[in-house]
Every structure is written in C-alpha cells, then in structure tokens.
C-alpha cells in the first residue's frame, strides 16, 4: 500500500516538475531577444564543431602569390599578408574562443561553487575566503590574466587557467550570497535538527537552490572569457601564432589596417556575434530566473 502511494506521489511530482519545466522553457522561448541570442550562439557553435568542413582552405596554408587579396568569390573574407584565407582562419578561430569560453565557465563555476557554498555554510571560513576573493577582485581582469600569462607563458591551456583564476572569485561571491539566504531557511534548520551531515546539507539541499544565479553568471562569464581571450591574443600574450584565434587575427589586421581592412573586420564581427548572443541569453535567463528583476520590469 505504502509502495503504491509512494509511486503515485512520485508520478505526480514528476508530472508537476515537467509542467514547471515546460512553463520555464515556454517563457524563455517567448523572449524574442533570448531566442535571437540562442540562434547567434548556435551558428558559432556549429561553426566551431564543423570547422574543418566549413573552411575552404587549410587555415595555415600560405599562398605568397595571393597576399592581401580583397574579399572575392575565391576568398570570401580576403587573404592576409602571408596569403592565408581569412575566412578559414576565422572559422577555425571559433574553436579557440568556444573551447576557452566553455573551459573557463566549467572551471570557474565548479571552484567558485565550492568556495561560495563552504564560505556561506562555515562562518569561520567565510571571513578568510571572502577577504581573498575581495583581494583577487581588486585586480582588473585583463591585467591579472596578462600577469598570469606572463608567468606561465603563452599557451591555450594557460589562457584557460589565467581567465578561470580571474572569474572564480566572481562566482564564489554570487553563490555565497545565494547560499546565505538558503542557509537561513527553516527546512535547512529542520534537516540540521534531524542530524543531517553538513556535506549532505550543502550539496543536496543548498547547492541546487543556488543554481539559478550561477547559470546566469556563467553565461556572462562565457561572454567575458571570449573578450579576454581575444584581448590577450591581440596583445600577443594569448593563443600563440600561427594557430588562428580571433584575437591574433585582429592583431595581424591592426598592422595592416591601411592596406587590408578585411583582416580586422571579420574576426571582430565573429566576436561581437558570440558575445552579443551570450549577453542576450544571459539577460533572458536573468529575467526568467531572478524574481527581483521581474519585479523591477513590471
């Protein structure tokens, strides 16, 4: 009898959960700007996944006879000073931006989540962790990333490490402030009274309730990571040439701006499309998941 009642209850909960999820998805899809963001980002993701199929030339192939050719049917985005096809380099460059952005989001979200949750739950840790977080947040993101790159050397893995270090404190702050609110709820007190273990309370009961602000934050971090990777590579402290990244193609374009505008225009458009897409999705998610902004908007 008990088993049957439990099964019915579970079915009912699953049904309600699926309705709730449907409403959330429908509300997100009714936001035209967020859907535009998803479309932009899908284009960039497809470009990164199918780069070898979409590129018309190998991105490193030099054709000295075709140096600095303007955009044409043969070279859609023109060629650079070594006769390399800018279109193929931009397409392959998306792989660096997307992989750096995703890696930074995963690393900074996981580590920031751990720091934020433990900081909120154990008050004696809070002071220490938050002072370190405050100290790290005092460094301008690009400068901190440049300094770490200068110490570690220019490599894509190091770009990921340096940008992740920059954003771990931001995530920790966001998660901590959400977790502090959850921690004071009566149900957490009830679980504590029932003898629930701290790690179980933190990970099973507090963490899931901190996911909404974390997801919104992660979208914006993805966008910032794309800009910082491009900035580092533009300055010569990021992805090392000849491997194409949007930032280092822009750097080539800067020196040839008078002769070949196309080298700097197209990778820039790709960066703007990616960052704009992510910001639109982030804004859409925030409107959906944060009741505070909903109130302000109404």
């Amino acid at each position, binding site marked *: 009898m008990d088993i049957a009642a439990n099964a019915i209850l579970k079915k009912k909960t699953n049904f309600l959960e699926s309705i709730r999820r449907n409403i959330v998805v429908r509300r997100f899809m009714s936001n035209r700007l967020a859907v535009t963001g998803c479309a932009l980002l899908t284009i960039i993701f497809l470009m990164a996944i199918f780069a070898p199929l979409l590129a018309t030339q190998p991105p490193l192939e030099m054709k000295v006879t075709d140096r600095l050719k303007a955009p044409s049917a043969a070279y859609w985005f023109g060629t650079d000073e070594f006769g390399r096809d800018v279109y193929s380099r931009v397409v392959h460059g998306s792989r660096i931006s997307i992989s750096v952005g995703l890696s930074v989001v995963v690393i900074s979200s996981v580590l920031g989540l751990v720091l934020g949750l433990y900081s909120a739950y154990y008050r004696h840790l809070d002071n220490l962790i938050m*002072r*370190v977080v*405050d*100290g*790290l*947040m*005092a*460094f*301008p*993101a*690009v*400068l*901190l990333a*440049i*300094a*770490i*790159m*200068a*110490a*570690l*050397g220019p490599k894509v893995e190091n770009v990921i490490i340096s940008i992740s270090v920059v954003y771990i404190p931001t995530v920790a702050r966001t998660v901590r402030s959400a977790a502090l609110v959850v921690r004071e709820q009566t149900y957490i007190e009830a679980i504590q009274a029932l003898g629930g273990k701290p790690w179980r309370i933190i990970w099973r009961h507090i963490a899931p309730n901190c996911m909404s602000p974390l997801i919104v934050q992660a979208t914006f971090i993805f*966008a910032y990571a794309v*800009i910082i990777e*491009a*900035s580092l590579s*533009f*300055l*010569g*402290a990021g992805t090392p040439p000849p491997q194409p990244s949007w930032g280092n193609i*822009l750097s080539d*374009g*800067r020196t040839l*701006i*008078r002769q070949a*505008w196309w080298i*700097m*225009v197209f990778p*820039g458009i790709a*960066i*703007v499309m990616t*960052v*704009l897409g992510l*910001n*639109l999705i982030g*804004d859409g998610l925030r409107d959906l998941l944060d009741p505070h*902004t909903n*109130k*302000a*908007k*109404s």
Partner: protein
Amino acid sequence: MVKYIFKRICYLLPVLAVVAIVDFVIIHLTPGDPAAVMLGSDATDADLAKLREQLGLNLPIYVQFGRWLWGVLHGNLGWSIFMDMPVSTAIWQHLGPTVSLTILAEVIAIAVAIPLGVAAAANRGTWLDQLFMTLALLGISIPSFWIGLNFILLFAVKLGWFPAAGYQPLSSGLVNHLKYLIMPAVSLGIMQGALIARMTRSSLLEVLNENYIRTAEAKGLKYWVIIFKHALRNAFIPILTVIGLTFAVLIGGAVVTETVFNIPGIGKLVVTAVLRRDYAVIQGAILMTATAYVLINLVIDLLYALIDPRVRLSK
C-alpha cells in the same frame, strides 16, 4: 561620519594585504628559473647568478616576500632591468596618458549613459527605451579595442579627421591633447557607458515602483521633477556602485586600447614588460592599479554615505 570612514579604511587593510600577496605570488608561478626566462637562452652562468642575486631569488621565499613588501611600503617597487630605472619612475612616466585616457572615457561614459538610462526608464516599454537598451546591449558586446580599430579605419584612414595613433600631453595644448585622445576615450567609454546606462535604467525603474513616487505623482508634481529630484537621487547608489566596480573594466580596456592607439601609458608599459618578461614592472604596475581600484571604491563607499544618510547611520 569619522567613525564610518575609519571603519571603511580598517576593512581595506586585509584586502590590500591579499592584493600584495597575490601580486608577489603571481610572478613566482613562473615554471623553472625566472632569471633564465628573463635573460633568455644566450645568458651566461655569471649573468644568471648576478640577476638571481639582484632579484634575491636565492633567498628563502618568505625573506623575498618580506624584502619586497618592505620596499613596497617605502615606495620602492623594484628595478626594471630592461629600462634600467626604478619601476616607480617608469610607472610615474607612463601614468599621465592613462589617467587622462581613463578620466576622459569615464566622463564621456557618465555624460552619455545617465541621460540615456533616465530617458529609457522614463519612457519604459516605448520604442525609445528599446532603441537605447539595444544600443547599450551592443555596447557591452563589442570589445573596446575592436571599436578602436574601426574608429581608426573610419575617422583616421578614410576621413582623415583624427590622427590614427599617438599621444600629445596636455602641455601641448588642450585641443591638441583631445585630438589624439578623443577616439581612444570614446572607444573605451562605450562599454563603460553601456553598463552604467543599463544600471541607471533598472535602478530607476525599481525606485519608480516605490510608494513615495506615487505620493509625489498624487501631489501633482511634474514628471521630470519626480524623476530628477525624487527618483534619481535614490537610484544613485547602485549607479555609483557600478561606476566603481566597472572601473576595473575601464583599466583593463585601457591596457588594450593603449596598444591599439600606441599611447605610452601604463597599459603599453605592462604589455611591453610582458613581451620582455620584465617581471618587476608587471608586478609594480599591477599592484598600483589594484591599489587604485581599491581606493576608488573606498571613495565611492564614502560617497554613498554623503548621498544616503542611512548608509552612515546604520550600525
């Protein structure tokens, strides 16, 4: 108020301590021997030993930190081996252009963003609101250095209105100074302005929902009086916060913008130091900008108290 200022300053000390530790540790992340990295593969053993001695690399790490911190507290940020001068002198020589650039960018950003944010909030839901907020969204999505490159292409290469790159100090005349600085400042200020405009709109909308605004409307006050006299003043704290917090974005953007426009500021100094592996300069410049950021946010914290008495009166 004095108690409030004292409390804020005490709160800063641990943050500055962390800044100093992080700044010191970063350079020690270098794999292998920093002296060998700095001098390259052609260096002799004698050169390496001399540089290690000069940088104190053969001392225990805590002694190195103690010596470095003692120096920093006495205004000695180290010695640049490539520029052959004290790091503090190098920073001082490069400070002027960065200060001019960031102040001008911030002024442009605030002057444009606050009226746009107010106009968007006051006309919520209309085409004007949508237009301004779309522009703001574009503003936060376009990297400042790419805007800078496009400005060079359009206004310098095609139209010839402004010089493509370079810097003239204020002593060469205000017009000349601005002629070189306006393109970099606008390109740097756009992202900052977009962030401020978005925050102005959202915090103003929140205040406009308050009961006292309804009371002001019921009293028959003019709409612009309600917005500027009653709402904007109360919406100002989040706006000030975003101005302070995004100052780091501004400095970060300045590093890249200075490279685009070949401006001999702190950003250019750091980028050149990174390419030469001149660690003392990187360390000194980053310490200085982080400290500047902390101090600017202190000033903003104190401004809160001036604008809103509840801040200084609450415990």
